[in-house]
């Protein structure tokens, strides 16, 4: 058997879809997409941020961002952005996860 035949066989050998790696890669992808900038801070959309924002009725408040910096924020605006991003990315994550589950 010559070299090219061996190489050809190696290329055509079956590669199993790595569900574990795909699931983790997907998590990294959507966790990154949950980040957004608002005011002078960097925020991660999620239940913790949304709940905190909903708990208060003030229009302006101080929150600590992803970098650990206290930032003065426009509460209703940040809440709106956080909810929008959270819903958008969760739906996209779910769709992609469902299609990956079928991959063989």
């Amino acid at each position, binding site marked *: 058997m010559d070299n090219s035949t061996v190489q050809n066989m190696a290329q055509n050998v079956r590669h199993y*879809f790595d569900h574990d*790696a795909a699931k983790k*890669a997907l998590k990294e*992808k959507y966790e990154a997409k949950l*980040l957004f*900038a608002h005011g002078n801070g*960097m925020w991660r959309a999620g239940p913790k941020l949304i709940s905190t924002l909903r708990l208060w009725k003030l229009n302006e408040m101080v929150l600590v961002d992803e970098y650990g910096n206290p930032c003065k924020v426009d509460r209703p605006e940040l809440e709106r952005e956080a909810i929008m991003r959270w819903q958008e990315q969760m739906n996209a994550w779910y769709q992609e996860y469902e299609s*990956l589950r079928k991959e063989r």
Partner: protein
Amino acid sequence: MSQGFMIFAFNNAKIDYLAQAIWVGHRIREYLDKPVTIVTDVASFEEHAQHLAAFNVIQTEPLALGQRNFDIFNDDRVALWYNANRYQAYEITPYDETIVIDSDYIVSSGQLNLLFDSPHDFLTHRAVHDVTSKNSFEAFDTFGTTQMPHYWATVLYFRKGALAKQIFNLVTMIKTNYKYYSKLYQFMGHPYRNDYAVSLAQLIAYGHRIDAVPSIPWLLNTAPADATITQIDDKTFEFRYEKWIHGQPAPKNMRVKISEQDVHCLEKFSMGEMISG
């Protein structure tokens, strides 16, 4: 404030880095809608002059980090590794805010634009995510026997100003006195590593307070050197690799797809084949 990307690309006898940079540069234009400056040398430029019209090009002398084997499966792919010019980025960038990326960093999303909204003037990645889920980079969390935190210079964001200038001055100082720093922090003094110089420069700039150094708030997706790449569609790539599964007598052939997600591809030869079509 002007914003843009810079890619340093100097060809050697084994790898066409400039072809990678041109390919990645077009993807930056497509996904991030920002101008791209490619820094290269005369010899590499002459090979690709007709493909560089879409970019701002800066020509400079390449500086070698040393010899490197570019293929972990073959020992005949050793060549000079020209990747020491990054310390010049601050002086030569035409932008107020710049993201310097490696030519093997495949852009497939708009994620990097978020760095332009960052409150920090200088950022690199602190942590890596191995897309093959083999944790190939665990050993790279720190460097040297003093276990200094390892920051990755693969993606480097800076906004022109006092802090960024100071960090680049420190990188230059560390590069000039690399042997001294390798002895001080007890890591290999050769070849020169951009990652180490940038890590130490940030640490010094932030007053040697490890917790004070900010980093890019997501992980650097990286495919290890044993994972070969093929392109499925414009924004989807498949990596093939071997993986040991618990209880199995031999490694299994595995594949994973990465879609709409940036990825740092360490295996240069399959990437080269993919780009050349």
